């Protein structure tokens, strides 16, 4: 009787926990939010986001998503305010890492806590893209000085991340050796290994450095007359994306003639699609429990690319087609982040499964019912972490051209509804950003995009 009550209580606790925010299905929530965004109902998307984050204690992800949605709405001040909150959270993370790297690494490497239960601290590429997106918001209102601050922050953040990851990977290798876990992601039977081994993933130098971010840095420094800083921006971008004529040309043009008084050096930035989702996949893996190899199902994350938006390689400017150069793919960066994290995920998941297996075996011998409850609880709580910044644009493509001062028509391909956006070139250097989701086009600066209408 007592054991029956115990089981009921335990099952009730498990059910309650599964409803807890720690066990929320982020993928489901954001699928609905992104559907609203793709249909052009940004207010609907914002309402959903607020509904799913009703607690007062908002996390980094909430501010990431809110900033991007408000940006699509054209509320740049609101977007910056949300992203400032996100930036503060990242800044605190950065300070914690700089202050005591060892302590941070030992906390993060804890084998007891499931990844999805941790407070979300963002992937490295998200931290880098945050300040890049903030710079784009400022550039939409021609605030090059403000954008310079965000860009400088990006370089400093990249340096912190690079040093941390160097130490982390070394520590992880030693730990895996100590724990006797030799499994690699290529050994996971049934795992879509090819997605993490794709050339665009392996070809990246790391998961967090973006060629677009560095190219934008180059453009901003050049606009501010700081050629000594513009050059490394273009050079770094060219190193990250070799054989890209646009990047090599930017470096060559740095010493070329200045922009004429009646024209603008315009950088058109087209950000399309949405960041990929993370899903959880269960795979059987042999793990050593009390000297015996036991096949145990373990959960691992997989990347699910977004398919909401058609790909395109050209835009029209005043009726003439201009080629776009792709400088950033969030899908590739996300896959690379997972590829780099996989050894750590495998190590933590395996060690946790071993300790759980041993506990369950001991319980089975003394109290079989309690062992069963632990098994059920494990089945509910175990799962890969599926949280990730989902409204972040997937592809970032650019075209750079000289335009005479005045209004110009930018047209998007028919596959995207053939939207026409009227932009005004008036500054010596100018950045025009267009955001495409589904067949919706959002211009970040309502003043820049004088009119936005669908072609008949």
């Amino acid at each position: 009787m007592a054991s029956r009550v115990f089981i009921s209580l335990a099952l009730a606790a498990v059910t309650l926990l599964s409803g807890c925010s720690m066990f929320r299905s982020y993928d489901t929530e954001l699928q609905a939010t992104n559907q609203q965004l793709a249909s052009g109902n940004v207010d609907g998307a914002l309402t959903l986001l607020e509904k799913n984050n009703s607690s007062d204690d908002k996390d980094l992800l909430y501010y990431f998503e809110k900033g991007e949605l408000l940006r699509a709405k054209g509320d740049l001040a609101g977007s910056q305010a949300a992203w400032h909150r996100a930036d503060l959270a990242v800044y605190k993370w950065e300070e914690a890492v700089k202050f005591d790297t060892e302590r941070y690494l030992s906390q993060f490497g804890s084998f007891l806590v499931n990844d999805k239960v941790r407070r979300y601290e963002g992937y490295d590429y998200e931290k880098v893209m945050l300040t890049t997106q903030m710079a784009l918001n400022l550039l939409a209102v021609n605030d090059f000085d403000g954008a310079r601050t965000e860009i400088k922050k990006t370089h400093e953040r990249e340096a912190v991340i690079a040093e941390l990851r160097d130490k982390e990977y070394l520590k992880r290798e030693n730990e895996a050796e100590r724990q006797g876990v030799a499994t690699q992601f290529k050994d996971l039977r049934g795992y879509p290994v090819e997605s993490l081994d794709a050339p665009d993933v392996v070809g990246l130098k790391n998961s967090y450095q973006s060629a677009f971010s560095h190219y934008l840095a180059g453009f901003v420094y050049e606009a501010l007359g700081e050629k000594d800083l513009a050059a490394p921006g273009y050079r770094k971008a060219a190193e990250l994306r070799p054989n890209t004529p646009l990047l090599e040309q930017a470096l060559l043009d740095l010493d070329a003639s200045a922009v004429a008084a009646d024209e603008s050096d315009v950088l058109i930035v087209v950000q399309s699609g949405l960041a990929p989702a993370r899903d959880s996949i269960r795979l059987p893996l042999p793990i050593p429990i009390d000297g015996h190899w036991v096949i145990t199902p373990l959960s691992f994350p997989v990347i699910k690319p977004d398919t909401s938006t058609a790909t395109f390689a050209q835009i029209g400017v005043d009726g003439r087609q201009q080629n776009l150069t792709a400088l950033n793919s969030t899908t590739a960066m996300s896959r690379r982040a997972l590829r780099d994290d996989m050894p750590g995920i495998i190590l933590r998941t395996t060690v946790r499964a071993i300790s759980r297996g041993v506990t369950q075996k001991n319980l089975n011998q003394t109290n079989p019912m309690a062992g069963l409850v632990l098994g059920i609880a494990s089945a509910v709580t175990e799962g890969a972490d599926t949280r990730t910044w989902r409204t972040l644009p997937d592809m970032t493509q650019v075209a750079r051209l000289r335009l005479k001062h005045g209004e110009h028509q930018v047209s998007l391909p028919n596959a995207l509804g053939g939207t026409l956006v009227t932009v005004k070139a008036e500054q010596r250097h100018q950045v025009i950003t267009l955001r495409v989701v589904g067949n919706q086009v959002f211009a970040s600066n309502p003043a820049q995009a004088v009119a936005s209408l669908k072609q008949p």
Partner: protein
Amino acid sequence: MLARFSFLAVVAVLASGCANTSPVIGGKNISYGDTKAVELVTNEFGSTDLQMIAESMTRSLAQSGILQGRPVVQVYDVKNKTSEYIDTREITTSIKTQLMKTGTARFASDNTDMQSQVDQLKLQNQSGLYKKSTVSKTGNMIAAKYRLEGSISSIVKRSADYKDVFYKFSLQLVDVESGLAEWMDEKEIRKTTER
């Protein structure tokens, strides 16, 4: 006698009180560091490199004997040929400041200051806002006799255990009229980190 001692004692106490610095608020783990201390936080370009280059170049240029009679020099951008975000203008500003402080040379408006200089002259002469006797006249700007220009480049090598960075900074002083390089020097820095 006693009065004299007492007076001296009071003066000493007062003087020691004068020497007391302003009160410090808070600051458990915060301290001011020596700006000249050697910085070895990472092997990227840092404050010590900037100071080393500026000092070495200033000394070399001042001792070269080329800067006779405080000539006018125009400072150009130092080309950054590395992949690192090095603000080379800070190096030339340090060189410029040190040469200016010793009175060795005078400096014409450089690329970055020129626009502000032209704008100010236009404002004074064309706006009609200023008293005529105080207006700076156009056509009196002093042209540079020399231009100072240079570059910084780096070679980075990595292995599993080491990262080696080699920086080379070169600077030259060119006579604007003749086009001849009258002075040239370079500073090399090597930084190695073991992981």
